[in-house]
């Protein structure tokens, strides 16, 4: 019994140590939103929003080659959910809002960005969340493609 407890304690200590290491590493990186264009996006289902993020280390130096993973909360879709930072530590995301309607009125969307690369043992990551303000579109936006052509009509 005592031996089991000892082993369990050792395992827990190791897990805590590894988690602590990753938690420490997570504090060593920072994800910041550099730009969002446009600042207020029409919820028309077509117009893209460009979001540029920058990852820096504890000394403020750009973190190159970090894999960022993003999730929109509240609707809409990203052209890619994972983007790798460039030489300048920057990553560009393209977000497409949903189309506002009576069933889903325009409202702000949260985009959560996680730095997957700073976690070694556990999933404890540096992260940030930004708000994309969505507004009711003034005019409808259409795709570059025509459904009638596709239908052959």
């Amino acid at each position, binding site marked *: 019994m005592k031996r089991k407890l000892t082993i369990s304690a050792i395992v827990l200590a190791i897990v805590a140590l590894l988690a602590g290491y990753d938690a420490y590493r997570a504090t060593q990186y920072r994800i910041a939103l550099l730009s969002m264009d446009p600042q207020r996006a029409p919820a028309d289902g077509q117009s893209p929003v460009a979001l540029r993020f920058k990852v820096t280390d504890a000394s403020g130096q750009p973190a190159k080659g970090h894999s960022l993973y993003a999730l929109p909360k509240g609707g809409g*879709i*990203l052209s890619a959910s994972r983007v790798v930072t460039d030489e300048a530590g920057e990553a560009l995301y393209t977000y*497409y809002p949903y189309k506002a309607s*009576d*069933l889903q009125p325009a409202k702000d969307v949260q985009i959560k960005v996680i730095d997957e690369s700073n976690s070694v043992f556990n*999933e404890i990551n540096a992260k940030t969340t930004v708000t994309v303000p969505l507004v009711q579109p003034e005019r409808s936006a259409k*795709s*570059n493609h025509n459904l009638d052509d*596709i239908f052959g009509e």
Partner: protein
Amino acid sequence: MLKFKWQSQILMLAASALVASGCSGAAGNSDATATASQIATASQTATGSATALPEGTDAGPKEIAGGRPVTLTVDLHGWMPTVNTEPTAENPTVFLSTQKIADAFMKLHPNVKIAWARTKPVGKLQNEIAEWLTTQISAGTAPAITFTWGNNYLDRDWYEPLGDALSTPDEYVSGNAKWSDLFPDYLMKHRSLVDNSKQPVAVPIVLYSGPATGYYYNKDLFESLGISPPKDWEEMFTDAKLLKEKGYVPFAQWGNFKQIELGQWNQQFSVGPFFAAALMDKTDYDKDGQVDTLETLRATKAGLFNAAEHDYAQEMYRQLKRMYTELLPAGWQNTDFSKPWNDGKVAMREEGLWALQAENGNKQRKFNYGVIPAPPITKSTSLDVADVQYTEKGPYQPDPDLSLNILKPIVKDNPDLKEAAIAFLKYLTVPENISMMVLEQGASLGAVKGSEIPPLLDDWMNNSFPIMPKASWPNAFTDEQGIALNKQFEMWVKGETDDAKFFAKSNEIQQKSADDYIKKMNIDTTGW
């Protein structure tokens, strides 16, 4: 490096506990894993509070079933709303449009309760779905609205005819004279959506954004080797030879294909239609530009697909055999290619276009990937195939991805349920509702005029696409003979029987299946 992902493991343990205790399990656009007790009412997972008809609606809905309570069980296959309503890194797929649509419908019709058929084994093969439906129909618990790949189970007499309903107005769309007017003409007579009398038995909801399936390929690998992804069937084998020499798995079949069988995607999309198209001057008896089931049956009885007699039929089978003998790696039947794919060891992987969003979110993949249409067979392989036509840009008259039937055995003695099912299908096909679905999913097209095209498809639709012939190469017409034909094909591929025996046997089985089908469906063959 070994990562001890304790957070994920705790979540998995928690999820397992929930499933074990019979609570709602995870469901998504892929495999649903709920248990029999998990046909949850739509309102249990509601997140939106839609309160009004879509913009432009003024016709106004009629009261359903005289206001009597109706519970409508609905199967939207891969388009059912997810149980999880917030994306997380562990479970990033969230799909809620259909929930919002159902909520709005229930708000309009408070006496109708929509329940999702979450026990359906979504992601399984057609014979497994047939088994599930058979059990559910026997028990009277099958969903009134369901997905069965259009008219795939026509011989089972499961489908409620929808021609009359499609001739009535869709009350949820302003100024609509006939529900069928919402759809492009080609879909109303699509060979996968009509019965043998050419009456619609399935309503198209969304379409593939081109071909139904594609080859997902390792872009980085192809670039590093200085080769292009294959444009036709022959190029695929050329690429495969080099890839094999370099130590890669050149090609992996769709994950659910684990047996040597006919009718798999290589036959459906790369080989069969192009051999069948070369025969269309003979098989398209009514000259309407497509070869439907009855015409295929008639051509079979006329011996046009007889491999014992025709070299072109033998060549069709030989090309299907090639995939097993030249392309697939040893041990493919017992291999899960997910990890080798993520690790960059698999050059090309067959997958549905519906998996685009999931692949975009695949955190395990270590390279950039691209998607190409399944490469068609051309005259560079065989002179027996029709010339492949290509669009200048974008797909042309793509096939239905999601089409929905009303199950006759479930509604035949329940007019209230039938009325509710038709009303919900009409509501689902309001262009704004279809737009909401395709914009959220991102990789499909709406089946109704005026629906939106997802912006994520912009680049994809700039490609030129092979135009799929509206004809296919038949196997057997009944399940029983289908099993027998597959067995013969497997023996032939494994070298357990010779060419002559296989070709003779395949014809014998095909003829028997055609006779059985004609008898079962009471088909009038006068004039054949």
